[in-house]
């Protein structure tokens, strides 16, 4: 029952943010999101592909993204996700929090 989705990314919670950021640029289906994150990070960030789907469900349940059936670029039926207004707001919140966090970590690492 209360099992939490396991995340394998480098920073906890960052997958949600990455998805929101991706969708804020364009509407995509699940595989497209994975590809976009990998390509735009020069293959530095490897999303554990399976974890994407629980994350998408969670984001949709929270009303941050909206999935609708559509057609992909190579003409296959797929659920295309788009970000909602609430999602953009959430992206802003998470981006600021992330910036604060990385700054704090950088300070700690840079302290002598």
């Amino acid at each position: 029952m209360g099992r939490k989705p396991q995340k394998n990314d480098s920073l906890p919670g960052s997958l949600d943010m990455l998805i929101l950021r991706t969708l804020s640029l364009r509407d995509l289906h699940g595989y497209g999101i994975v590809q976009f994150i990998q390509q735009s990070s020069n293959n530095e960030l490897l999303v554990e592909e399976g974890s994407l789907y629980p994350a998408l469900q969670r984001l949709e349940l929270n009303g941050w993204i909206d999935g609708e059936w559509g057609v992909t670029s190579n003409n296959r039926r797929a659920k295309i996700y788009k970000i909602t207004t609430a999602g953009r707001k959430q992206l802003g919140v998470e981006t600021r929090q992330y910036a604060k966090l990385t700054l704090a970590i950088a300070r700690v690492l840079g302290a002598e």
Partner: protein
Amino acid sequence: MLLRRLRYWIGSARRSAALNEEMELHLAEKAAELQADGMAADHAQAEARRRFGNVGLKHQESREIWLTRFLSEFSQDVRYGVRTMFANKSFSALALLSLALGIGANTTIYSFMESILLRSLPVADPESLVVLNWHSRPPRDGSKQAVHVMHGVQGMAWPGDKGAMVSGMFPYAAFENLRQQNPVFSTLFGYFNGLTHNLVVRRQAASASTEYVTGEYFRGLAVSPAAGRLISSDDDHPGADPVAVISFAASQNRFGGPLNAIGQSILVDNTPFTVIGVAPPEFFGVDPASAPDLYLPLHSNLLVDGDRAARMYPDSNFYWIEVMGRLRPGVSMAQAQAALAPRFHQWVATTASTDGERAKLPVLILNPGAAGLGGLRRQYAKPLYVLLAMVALILAVACANIANLLLARAAARSREMAVRLSLGAGRFRVVRQLLTASALLSSLGGALGVLLAIWGVRSLTLLLSNGQQNFTLHAELNWKVLTVTAVLSMLCGLLFGLLPAIQSTRADVMPALKNGRGGGPRRRAQNVLVVAQIALSFLILFGAGLFVRTLDKLHSVQLGYAREHILLFSLNARQAGHHDPEMTTFYANLRKHFESLPGVSGATLSQSSIINAARTGQAISGTMKVGAVAIEDTHVLAVGSRFLATMQIPILAGREIDDRDQSSSLPVAVISERLARTYFANQDPIGRHIALPDATPTLSQRAPKRDLEIVGVSANLRYGGLKNEDESAMTMFVAVSQFFPDRVTFALRTTGDPLRFLQSVHEIVREADSRIPVTNVVTQAAEIDRTISRELTFAKLCTNNHWYRKHNAVNRSWNSKRM
């Protein structure tokens, strides 16, 4: 949030499928990409799967996102609901009690409606069964005398639309005619209710209700035997071996099991039959109002009923057989009616002998037969609808009451709500929580209600049957009824929970936080509820008052004869093989035996009890005359010695019927005061004569003048039932020994409880002739009540409401204290 989650939850299966499709697509695209990079196809697929991780697990995790949250929140809400219930024990107890009563009453009544109005016969494919009826203008329509092609009927006719007469009885020849070369029915079968016969099994006599059925009956109904074989066409013709099929219950009661019954010989009214089969346990014939113990081939009534039966077959103007058919596949009821109605019309026209008869020929109509015959439905449909409306009102009052209490409680909790809302609790979340609590309350109430309904069904069956021996109305709490109850409970929860929940979360946060006092809208809602409650209660009170008043009126009716301390039971010596002159002595001797019982102050017999007499018919049919004046509207009852004394009917002049009046002596009569006044205005009627109708059978041998001598005058009495009959009908008593009836009803006047003497009665009858069963045992008081059973049922149910209203008042005062 709540709505979306609910949507997710409801669409869970669809969502799950969509998720699968998404994941499959993902894997396919990944594999395609890997393949484009030069990997082999199967290798690429395996690699895609490896990189994806555990597909099943991820699916499960995704599902949990939308499922477990809802469930965990739901269980949170249930826990919260239980806590609030325990926190307000008195409120919960009152709410549960009133809900349980309301839901229990509704479940009880609904289960009766289900069994009477909605249930199908327990046979294969009941939808293709149709009942044949006819309708015509009534016999007395437009003419002074009854004119109709139906000269006689054995069975029922009932009023239809626009004053028409409707019946399901047909002459045998009509059945034969309809059965020939039938393009619309695969089988057409007939039957008639043989009423009760004396059934002797292994020398034990008992009364058995009997159904005479044609050879196609069981085949047409598609019933298979529990043991042996059922009646077939070969068994149903004059001169066939006398065979019988018995009900499953009878096989258990009389033979100790279905298999033991096969091949046994039995006596039906002293005629030997062989049991060839046992009907299945759930089968009760075609009429839900009766469950025959015994099924006999139609033509075997020639053996049991003798000449009377032989006269019925060729008589095209005597209506006595009921007909049902099973439609051929693909044939609709309308098509069948269109095919058969002209044929029946043609046939029935040949049976009319006068223009008056031709003017109102019966017209054939088909009715759905899936639910069996309509007698029970006609009798109980209306009272059940009234009862259902009444209990629905009661439940509505209960709901309004609880809603009101919840509103009062919401006032006490408005501060808490304001705090929760201002801390950021979603309004829907709070409403959902409150609704879960009320749904919990109502489903608990529903569960308790089902328990109450189990008891209710049992006691209502008792009330409705009112001591009738073969009452076969079996209401039960099947899954259909329980589903309705569950839905009803949930509906109640929503009904009484929604308004208070919305109302309490609407509270303006700021003033509530400041002083914790309830605002205006809540008070307005409460006032509306109180008004509705008072209106509904008034309606129920008014209805209950009417029922109770009717009952009071019926109970205060002057009977003119004794009601208490009288035991009634019936014997039929003719069915056990006794014959006329000897039978009278047999009955007279029995009477003396009963009278000699210690504790019995009087014993008598009559052709039927006074209450039942209107239904059993007159002892003398035809017009009697005083001189040249015809006596009209007089009831004639054949009675034995000491009838008036036992029934405590005062004798105003002369004497009553006694042992002097033998079959060999002059026929005599005792007339009621009103009859005497009407036909012998100022003269003394004693010693005067009444001329009998010409064709009166079984008359005493020494009556050359064929008339009755008046020997006494009795006080007036109410004859027949309590509702419709004239308060002081004209009544004439004649001697049972001079007008031999088949069946007689004995009456014993006792000290103390009449039923205490039952054992002795059974012993005396068994000693006299063990072949005769004692039937229709009832006290006079109970038999009188039986005629007003519907009124009694309503009134008794209303007195329960009485209790409910009191409880409601307590509720309300408690409510106002909280405010």
